[in-house]
């Protein structure tokens, strides 16, 4: 038996040359050191790594020497017995030792199987020197990212829409189409945030009015009456000619099936959380700026004046007035001196004077009534419960403090003439003269005895008893006096003398509860301003037919256009879009404004006003159904919404 070391070298042509070398001795040493019988130039091998021996010439024992073992069949061993007939493969560092048997000899085949260094391995230059080796491929990334985007932001949302296609209300939770939300919904619609389909019902179909009125069944159901009555051709002719931008938008709208004139054209959504913004002035001025000329050209002449901006271009107000005594109320014509005959005689100037009889009388009532040194507007004019308008003046409440109708005191109770009922006045006075004797002269008092001559003509008795006899017929004089110049009625009222078949008549008094029918004015919102700041004509008004409703000029002292445009110098400017005074959907209603801009004490407004508070039937004749139908909202006013 002997060990034979076999080495195989490969020529350049790939031919293998096998060299066998008989090894001396029974103990074969293996290691990196040159003194070993099998010398392996491998840094991973110890200088004296292992010994190989065989006792019977068939079984081989391999034993490691210096701690480092060797690998046999994938496991590390320090000692291993190998049947050379069966063969075995051992691994020392980067070398392989194969043990085999040929005849009587044990063949030890040593080969280098690993490269000397990692750097010696072949590399693909393009891949190794670029980032391809360390990064995910660009194409792969493109596909991955692209598909991820499509799944999350296209397929997902469409799936969400599809799943709730025929469902009334979506359940809470995440819905993939919320990724499409282009902006927060206004606070009124905030609860619909997760339910896109509540408005976007059909895919690729622009939001229809149907979606709006399915919830907004009340005041938002109809267009403004003024606009609804106009023929469509007229409404279309009123629009200002489209600019380049609007033509582009129209092109988009037409191409992609987005009809115009829908609710959402004005009530834009997804503009951010918070209250829905009030409709901007442009939506009105788009038509009303220069409209009369356009309508005239188009064959729809109109009396409507042009309006573009409150600060610079707004027609003069046309309050509702009675141009002559007893005339029907009509809107004042622009550019003419306006008088309003209500039937009352009332000189404001006299009542507002700081000196004179009225002021002195008012001063004398201080403490008893709410009077100061002189009369103030508020002494006679009281606002309605909601504060918006001023109550009609009532004789009993607002005048009678000074203008007393008392004519008799019975047991400490003062009897007054009935106000508003001339026939009753006549009857009361007649009864008074019939039932009461004339005042007894002093000479007739006492117990002293009188001489008979006192009954003669011109004497006391004669005078008194004659007076008693004719007293009932004196009533007619008294009635005449009351209704004539210098009498209690005549001072304030226009009195018609009795004619055939008629008794005394007083011309009815008409007080207009709302002068400006097309715009909204809220006295409550202006309560920090003095009355006289706006009602400038009051202090000099000698006749009650002077119209004291302020004009455009007074408003413009504070109110400027939406963007601050103005014609006059304004100290504290209030930017006023059309919607501040004009309501589009219901002509009689109060213009809507975002809750934050409302005054805090709006509860009075939201309470339903008393029946008849706005009873204008007297002026406008029988109420036409729907025209003045104001729906009063009673929203749950949370503190936060009121801005406080």
């Amino acid at each position, binding site marked *: 038996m002997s060990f034979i070391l076999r080495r195989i070298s490969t020529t350049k042509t790939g031919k293998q040359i096998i060299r066998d070398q008989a090894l001396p001795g029974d103990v074969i040493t293996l290691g990196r050191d040159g003194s070993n019988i099998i010398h392996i130039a491998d840094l991973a091998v110890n200088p004296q790594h292992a010994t190989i021996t065989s006792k019977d010439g068939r079984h081989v024992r391999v034993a490691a020497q210096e701690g480092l073992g060797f690998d046999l069949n994938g496991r590390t061993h320090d000692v291993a017995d190998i049947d050379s007939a069966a063969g075995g493969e051992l691994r020392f560092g980067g070398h392989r030792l194969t043990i085999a048997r040929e005849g009587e000899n044990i063949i030890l085949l040593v080969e280098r199987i690993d490269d000397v260094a990692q750097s010696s391995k072949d590399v693909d230059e393009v891949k190794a020197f670029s980032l391809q080796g360390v990064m995910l491929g660009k194409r792969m990334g493109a*596909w991955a990212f692209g598909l991820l985007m499509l799944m999350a932001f296209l397929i997902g949302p469409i799936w969400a829409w599809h799943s709730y296609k025929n469902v009334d209300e979506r359940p809470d939770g995440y819905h993939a189409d919320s990724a499409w939300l282009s902006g927060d919904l206004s606070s009124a619609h905030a609860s619909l945030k997760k339910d896109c389909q509540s408005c976007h019902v059909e895919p690729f179909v622009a939001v229809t009015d149907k979606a709006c009125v399915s919830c907004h069944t009340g005041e938002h159901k109809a267009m403004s009456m003024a606009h609804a009555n106009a023929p469509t051709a007229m409404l279309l002719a009123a629009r200002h000619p489209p600019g380049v931008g609007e033509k582009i938008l129209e092109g988009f709208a037409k191409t992609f099936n987005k009809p115009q004139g829908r609710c959402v054209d004005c009530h834009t959504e997804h503009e951010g959380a918070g209250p829905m913004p009030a409709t901007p002035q442009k939506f009105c001025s788009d038509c009303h700026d220069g409209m009369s000329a356009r309508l005239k050209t188009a064959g729809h002449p109109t009396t409507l004046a042009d309006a573009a901006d409150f600060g610079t271009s707004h027609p003069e107000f046309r309050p509702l007035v009675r141009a002559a005594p007893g005339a029907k109320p009509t809107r004042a014509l622009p550019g003419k001196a306006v008088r309003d005959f209500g039937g009352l005689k009332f000189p404001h100037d006299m009542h507002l004077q700081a000196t004179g009889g009225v002021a002195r009388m008012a001063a004398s009532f201080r403490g008893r009534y709410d009077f100061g040194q002189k009369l103030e507007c508020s002494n006679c004019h009281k606002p309605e419960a909601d504060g918006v308008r001023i109550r009609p003046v009532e004789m009993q409440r607002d005048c009678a403090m000074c203008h007393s109708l008392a004519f008799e005191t019975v047991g400490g109770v003062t009897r007054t003439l009935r106000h508003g009922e001339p026939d009753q006045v006549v009857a009361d006075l007649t009864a008074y003269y019939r039932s009461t004797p004339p005042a007894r002269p002093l000479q007739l008092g006492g117990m002293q005895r009188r001489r008979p001559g006192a009954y003669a003509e011109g004497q006391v008795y004669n005078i008194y008893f004659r007076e008693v006899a004719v007293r009932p017929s004196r009533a007619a004089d008294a009635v005449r006096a009351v209704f004539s110049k210098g009498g209690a009625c005549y001072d304030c009222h226009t009195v018609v003398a009795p004619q055939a078949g008629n008794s005394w008549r007083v011309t009815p008094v008409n007080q207009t509860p709302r002068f400006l029918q097309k715009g909204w004015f809220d006295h409550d919102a202006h309560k920090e301003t003095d009355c006289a700041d706006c009602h400038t004509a009051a202090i000099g008004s000698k006749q009650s037919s002077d119209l004291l409703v302020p004009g455009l000029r007074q408003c413009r002292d504070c109110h400027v256009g939406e963007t601050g445009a103005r014609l006059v110098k304004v100290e504290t400017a209030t930017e006023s879009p059309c919607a501040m005074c004009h309501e589009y959907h219901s002509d009689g209603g109060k213009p809507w404004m975002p809750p934050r801009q409302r005054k805090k004490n709006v509860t009075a407004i939201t309470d339903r006003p008393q029946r008849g508070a706005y009873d204008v039937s007297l002026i406008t004749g029988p109420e036409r159904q729907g025209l003045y139908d104001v729906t009063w909202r009673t929203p749950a006013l949370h503190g936060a919404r009121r801005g406080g």
Partner: protein
Amino acid sequence: MASLFQRRRNKATQTERIRERRHEGFLRHADFRWAKISGGLCLLVIISYALVDVTPRHNGGSWYGYTLGTIGAGLILWLTALGYRKRKMTSTAWSLKAWTSAHVYLGLSLIVIGTWHTGFQLGWNVHTLAWALMMLVILSGLYGVIAYATLPKALSNNRDEMTQMQMLEAIRAFDRQLHAAAQPLTPEDTAPVLAALEEDPFAGSIGARLSGRYPKCATAAALRTLSASRSSDAEAREKVVGLLSQKEAALTRLRRHLRIRGLLEIWLYVHVPLTFALIAALSAHIISVFFYW
């Protein structure tokens, strides 16, 4: 007549030659033609945005927003087409250089067109996602332009007239020498040398590639260990130490080369995948607008 054309052609050739000599890159192509065009476009957008009065306020849904959005989407698709164009050889007037120049400058103008299209209304939604992806693509492209303008010089300086494979070959040579020279060393000393040999010169994460920092470098570790070691024959060890430091120098050069190449390429790994993510998000953005019209 013929001579007239001849002269004109001569002049054109001359201009071309001057351009060649001055190496007019894609940035200054045709005297900054595309820079001027896209600059003018941005200016037009910014001024018209301020002048145009849309109600209730600027957003993507106004007529102005639609216009900008259409222009922007068209631009994005055209810019993406550079990837296709650069693979096609043509000899027409639209040279690849002109195309690249337009790609860079019109791409930058997309910052204005895209952002002004939003009306500065951003949120957590697919619309803003598309905008953000667009901005990332543009910014990565901007980085790429800067990298292409500055890094090739550093790459050239580092190479020292060697090719990439020559750099690798130098390391291989040092490795072979190290293996031979380390044979007499003790096992304690051979272990770090062996580790140095077994280290792949191209190993390292993307972070190491781009930063050029390899704190666990086995060659540097071996150099430290052997310099401090006293166990082997001093002469053999010194030889190994010398070889190790030479290998380290060669490795540093290779790694610097890899780093600069990495910096030149890395933006494309953002630019290209995000472009396709952008096109997907843009499709979702456009379809969503019409879906919930």
